């Protein structure tokens, strides 16, 4: 007696992972950093994450509908959520709600779906969204909070919500009493006005290496990044190239003139370098595919960031660096194809 069977292509084993699993692990790896962020700067970041996620999913659903794609597999892949969370981590925690809306419009609709959706985007969507609002609304995007330990006024959840949704600070004195310059801002304006770095660093907003609070957030992001390395969601080349190049490049400047150049670890632990090294420059879609290419990509991000920090108009330049390297990625890939077996 014989029997009939259904057929299907090899391999005949359940797949090891899914796109959604990859994205979920990225989100999981961000949790420690987000918690630290909340610890040092209050609940604003959580509200920004929720806002950005809601807008991202709305635009994602809208675009999938317009493009005639099925909603379920693509909404459930969490890629839009990753974009939203990474964006939210880049903006001031008190930014008004419409900042997220505009940024996600550009991130999801323009940078992602108009290029062909998941896997097709040339530019990192989160960075596109961030750069659009950074350039368009510079005042809003520079209204950063000092760490809670240095805050003169208690600023609770209700106050945060009111600020985000009304755009007005519900305190006497308005924005001026709650916001302050970031460590990178302070450094840049300080150096430009002729003060020396050790002197600038006497300000209480600086910690051991980077900014007070910021350096701890960076540590927790790095921990999440190591988790991703361990899970092999990301490869070691990009983080190593970014952080290694930042250190290598800033050492000679610092040795030559320690008064107007911050020491290397301050560069690493300031701004978005650690977040970018593990979570942003490692975006596989808009990055390089070969290992050598990834090293070049990471080094490029570091170089452009430092150039912008040192000579550019913005205190930090990670987003611009990532976008510029995104453009170079296909070319780098072309020249770094690995040698194949027997070649």
């Amino acid at each position, binding site marked *: *007696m*014989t*029997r*009939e*069977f*259904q*057929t*299907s*292509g*090899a*391999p*005949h*084993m*359940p*797949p*090891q*992972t*899914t*796109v959604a*699993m*990859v994205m979920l692990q990225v989100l999981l790896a961000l949790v420690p950093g987000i918690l630290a962020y909340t610890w040092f700067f209050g609940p604003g970041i959580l509200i920004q994450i929720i806002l950005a996620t809601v807008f991202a999913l709305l635009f994602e659903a809208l675009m999938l509908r317009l493009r005639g794609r099925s909603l379920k*597999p*693509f909404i459930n*892949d969490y*890629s839009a959520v990753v974009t939203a969370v990474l964006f939210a981590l880049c903006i001031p925690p008190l930014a008004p709600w419409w900042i997220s809306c505009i940024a996600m419009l550009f991130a999801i609709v323009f940078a992602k779906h108009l290029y062909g*959706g*998941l*896997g*097709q985007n040339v530019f990192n969507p989160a960075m596109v969204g961030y750069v659009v609002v950074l350039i368009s609304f510079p005042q809003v995007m520079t209204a950063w909070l000092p760490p809670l330990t240095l805050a003169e006024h208690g600023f609770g959840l209700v106050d945060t919500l009111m600020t985000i949704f009304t755009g007005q600070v519900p305190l006497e004195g308005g924005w001026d009493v709650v916001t302050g310059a970031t460590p990178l801002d302070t450094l840049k304006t300080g150096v430009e006005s002729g003060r020396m770095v050790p002197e600038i660093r006497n300000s209480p907003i600086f910690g051991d290496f980077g900014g007070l609070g910021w350096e701890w957030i960076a540590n927790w992001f790095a921990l999440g990044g190591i988790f991703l390395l361990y899970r*092999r*969601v990301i*490869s070691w080349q990009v983080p190593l190239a970014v952080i290694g190049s930042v250190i290598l490049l800033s050492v000679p400047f610092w040795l030559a003139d320690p008064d107007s150049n911050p020491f290397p670890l301050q560069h690493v632990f300031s701004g978005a370098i650690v977040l970018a090294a593990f979570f942003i420059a490692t975006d*596989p*879609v808009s*990055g390089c*595919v*070969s290992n050598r290419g990834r090293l070049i990509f990471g080094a490029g991000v570091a170089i452009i960031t430092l150039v912008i920090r040192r000579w550019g108009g913005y205190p930090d330049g990670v987003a611009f660096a990532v976008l510029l390297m995104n453009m170079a990625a296909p070319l780098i*890939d072309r020249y770094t*194809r*690995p*040698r*194949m*077996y*027997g*070649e």
Partner: protein
Amino acid sequence: MTHANRDQLAREAGRHTHHFHGGLRLRHNKKISCQDAVERPPLPEILVVPLLQHAGDTAEPYVKVGDQVLKGQQIGRCQPSAAIHSPVSGVVEAIEDHPMTHPSGLAGPCVFIRPDGQEQWVELRPIPDWQTANPEELIRQMQECGLAGLGGAVFPTHAKTRDGRDRKIHTLILNGSECEPYISCDEMLMREQPDLIVLGARILRRALGAQRVVIAIEDQMGAVRQALTHAVNSAECEKVSVVQVPKIYPEGGERQLIQVLTGLEVPVGGRPSDLGLVCQNVATAAAVAEAVVEGKPLIERYITLTGNGISHPRNFNALFGTRFSHLVEICGGYTADVARLVVGGPMMGYPVDTDATPVVKASNCVLALTTGDIAEPQPEMPCIRCGECARVCPATLLPQQLNLQIRNGLWTDAEAYGLKACIECGCCDFVCPSHIPLVEWFRYGKGQLRQRAIEASATERARRRFEDRDARLLREKQERAEKMAQRKRMLKDKAKQHDSVRASINRAENKDNRGDGSAVSKKSGQDTK
């Protein structure tokens, strides 16, 4: 690396083990089918012997319906492939199309033989004095006995051996590293028939003119190592060594195994013989021993029936033409949740839609998978370029780039990125988070490249024909012109001759009419016109 260095490394094959790029550590699942000794199953009621069992063309059958055949009698052959033999004595009941255990899943011509139960052998022609026999005689015996690579590629053994001999190889590698999960037929053969394998290795070495034999087994096959080492020692033959290689899928692939044993890579588009090496499966070696020493043609093989879908997994020494269903019955049938039947392993095997398909030379394993083993078909997502595929690729390719190139029809790029070097091991498929059927695309792409190569050569031929025709037409035109010119010259010459004749006539007439001046002047006047 200099040529001498390469040669040195190739000659030292097996002294050190090296790594190859990528690969996967997979769960073996081999033990479940290794519990019982290997037996020959009872004769089935009917045997279905496909006429296409080797790399090559379908054989033309020698027999017709109603013929009486003997066990081991040749029933078909096609050049350059090896012969096909009747696995039993009996009667040819039909020759018709039947699903034939082939990746294509197509039906093909098969010889249906009903056994008479006599098991009467055809007259066998062994070569007992193989140690002094002419290597060419040994190679012919392999062809007559229908030997083909039993690792799954079923390349005719005589052709590979002759090629190796012609190319002066120095080392024979016997591949006993059965890297796919579940499959255990080679392991069982090495445990049970180590002497036969070592004997086959020595015969092959003589036929090839090789100096050394390296038998490669996996590092977790302790019993096998003991058995083989004992067999090597008792055969008292030097230069046969047993080497254990790390178990990383697909280290049993020919090119990967060579890399593991020598640290060298077989050149792109080249063959192992470029390095002075030839690979044969251990089961092929055993078959060589039987063919040469006993004269037995290849009519049966070790085959694993395994998987969670089979009640009692085990190995058989099954006759070709035995339907899978017959073997499954002896294993106690399927379990209730059986869902898919695969020939080969879970990574590279192909599914069959019925268990009426027969055991053939290439079938090393029948794997019955349950609904729990295989996942629901997952929706294919777009590539997110995560690069896992490149990390695990043993050929160091960029599968994601190849995927894009094939889908966009960028054939020149796909070729430049090494599509042809893909060994279809399925590692990239297995790790892809987007569930892209990469290997299926690569097979399609390779087919397209072959097609394009054929078309390109056809175009080239057509172009040459056209150019030749143009040249011919031009030549003919020139020749015609030449002829015309010649003819014109001839006519002119004739005219000249004519003129000179006329002139002489005139002169003669003048002579005749001398004295008659008026007549002369009139005539010459006409002449000058």
